[in-house]
């Protein structure tokens, strides 16, 4: 007995000292989405600043596929030692209700939620409406004639549309695309009429006058879009869901030693404050969060509750949020 206590003390001391100088080797960063996408760009631009803080390299690789499930499973299959980071976007928070996986970010440790985006509705320049209410009127008068671009079940577009449908009953024709890039291209070519998109992805096209904003899905107007009123002015019911938006975050497996988590949290916190990174994100219309610990966990839970229930009430969830104990917002 004494011996076991002794050995465990020694082991504890050893491990404590080992974790004190974390990291002792290069860290692996697993990006959930493909090269050139927004998650990829955000992660590749914050990483160099974080590396400076850590004093070790973060080797980035893209593990795509399965709506991000493959990357998540990979990180979950590695040891919980802080040497494998999951760098992803908001999708995993919908895995449970959509029946894609049994894990989400709430089962991991958030290192840093870097930033969040604001959704907005954009429309083809030739569309005969300029605001959300006009669009809704038009859609009511011409059922099914408004073609809306979407990016697949559980994506930003489907959740924002579900929010809209909870407020008004209109019939839209849904055309799915592989991502907001291809869909926004189709919008300019007239293959679709409207599309909910994250501000950052569409802002340059709006500035150039190639598409117009008809609604900002937030509770306040945004400096880069002067004159565009928030959607809550026209549809106050949206207040229940907002502020809501896609986000980018870095996570490690649950069970990672606190010392390693702390080191990573500090490094990412400093990296995300680097003026270059902040400027980059603001230019793209993202709101810097730089959140960790309790703040990050609260945001993740709230995002999951809102999205899961909206999707469930719109009728395209595979499992009820209740099955997983996801509380109603």
């Amino acid at each position, binding site marked *: 007995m004494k011996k076991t206590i002794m050995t465990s003390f020694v082991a504890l001391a050893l491990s404590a000292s080992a974790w004190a100088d974390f990291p002792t080797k290069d860290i692996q960063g697993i990006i959930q989405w493909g*090269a050139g996408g927004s998650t990829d760009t955000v992660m590749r631009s914050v990483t160099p600043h974080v590396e400076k803080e850590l004093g070790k390299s973060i080797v980035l690789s893209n593990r795509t596929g399965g709506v991000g499930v493959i990357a998540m499973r990979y990180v979950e299959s590695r040891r919980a030692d802080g040497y494998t980071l999951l760098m992803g976007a908001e999708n995993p928070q919908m895995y449970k209700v959509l029946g894609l996986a049994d894990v989400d970010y709430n089962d991991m440790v958030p290192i840093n939620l870097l930033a969040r985006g604001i959704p907005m509705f954009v429309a083809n320049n030739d569309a005969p409406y300029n605001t959300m209410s006009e669009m809704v009127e038009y859609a009511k008068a011409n059922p099914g004639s408004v073609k809306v671009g979407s990016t697949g079940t559980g994506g930003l577009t489907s959740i924002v549309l579900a929010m809209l449908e909870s407020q008004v009953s209109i019939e839209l024709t849904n055309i799915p695309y592989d991502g907001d890039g291809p869909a926004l291209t189709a919008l300019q070519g007239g293959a679709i009429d409207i599309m909910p998109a994250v501000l950052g992805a569409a802002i340059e096209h709006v500035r150039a006058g190639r598409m117009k904003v008809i609604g900002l899905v937030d509770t306040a107007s945004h400096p880069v879009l002067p004159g565009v009123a928030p959607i809550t002015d026209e549809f106050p019911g949206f207040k229940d869901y907002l502020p809501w938006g896609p986000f980018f975050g870095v996570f490690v497996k649950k069970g990672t030693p606190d010392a390693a988590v702390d080191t990573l949290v500090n490094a990412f916190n400093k990296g995300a404050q680097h003026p270059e990174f902040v400027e980059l994100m603001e230019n793209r219309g993202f709101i810097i969060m730089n959140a960790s610990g309790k703040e990050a966990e609260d945001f993740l839970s709230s995002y999951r509750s809102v999205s899961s229930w909206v999707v469930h009430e719109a009728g395209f969830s595979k499992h009820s949020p209740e099955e997983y104990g996801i509380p109603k917002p």
Partner: protein
Amino acid sequence: MFEALQYFSISWVSPELMFLTALGTFLGIYVGAIPGLSVTMAVSILISFTFSWDVNSALCLMVGVYMGGVYGGSRTAILLNIPGAPSAIATALDGYPLAQQGKAGEAIGLSTVMSVIGGFVGIIVLAVAAPHVSDFALTFQPRDYLLLGLLGILLVGSLSGGNMAKGLFAGAFGILIGTVGLDPLTAEERFTYGVVELWSGINPIAVMIGLFGITEALSQLHHMDKVAVKQRIDRLIPKWGDVKKYLPLSLRSSAIGVGVGSLPGVGGDIAALMAYDQAKRSTKNPEVEFGKGAKEGLVAPESANNAAVGGAYIPMLTLGIPGDAVTAVFIGALFIHGLNPGPMLMIERPEMFWFTVGNLTLANIFVLIFGLTGIRLFSKIVECPKGILIPVIFLLSIVGAYSINNSIADVWWMLGFGMLGYFFKMYGVPVGPIILGVILSRLIDDNWRRAIMSERGDLSNFFINMISSPLSATLLLAIILILLSQTPIWKKVFKPKNT
């Protein structure tokens, strides 16, 4: 005009930028030649690597890698029958037979010159007509992408080597493989049997490496006793007469390359295959049959895939819309370096446009220089004893398959398709249409459904719009003409006049 020229020459007058472009091109050729190591991946690694650099230096290196990489894919296609990238599949069809006849050096020389010609055509169109081309590319509706995919499927005829029934079977099998995974439109599982690794589908590059590399290596085992063909290395730089003779074909193929390359979502792989098909149809009396080492079969895809580079830059520089996967990464790079890639880039930072055009031109010249040196050494690879060469092909294929996505599952797929391809080959089923099917499956599947959803399921509207849109009608007419031209009646009426 003077300003444009000044921006154009930024990378020409700075020794540092010139060196970086040269280095990038050199690296690109070798990255491109290794199957599985994609240009997309190389460029995105360079983003991190060049993070703290000045934006011009970073872009020089990356543009070089892109230009060199697209060309480099032809190297292993010709020498070992393993295309370095999907855009070099068509190159392997006639390039590898040429190498087997001892003409590897000549094939590499010709493909280099044609790649460079194609590259220049792409750059010229980019410089002269970019805004017009990108506006035209945007008018392509889902229905037009569908027709483009169907036009591509007609290639089965060119790839099936005489046996149409087996070719059709192989093509359909390829389309089936392409449907595996989460349905891209609804995220429903298709043919996944509950296996998460199958959600993202079977990687087309793994299929390609297996069907070409491993299948060839296994078939070579039948001829272990045969001595490798002595390579002729007296003539490496193609004769001026040859270049002149193939120039019209090269220009036609380049036009296909720029056009297809400028369409968002369709890239050099489809451009090269379509150019190959076009060459096969338009060449009346080839010296050597297609598929057995016809030089036309080498000229067309190599011109087209390098022309597609300039094409892919067209929507990217004018509208901030990527023309292919690599330009998507470039958009990310511009963003990281504090520029706002989008339709305003041309107006706010016109120097970026001309700098890129100048840089592409420079990289293209380096392709010519690096491409034509070292051929002698490379063609020796084919002379290697089979006992060494076959294990090397296996090793290269395995490393290549693994590096696509750092996943061991891709290696198993690659080996599985390699063995399947071997049996197919033994029984005379051509493997070309399989990979064609895999590549085109998504394009046809997604766009057919988008097109019919846009008409709210109304087939009559679908056909009326197809005929009333000039673009769709033209594509449809092309498909009908190609089909008709293969019927006996057509041949009876039109063939005698030609001879």
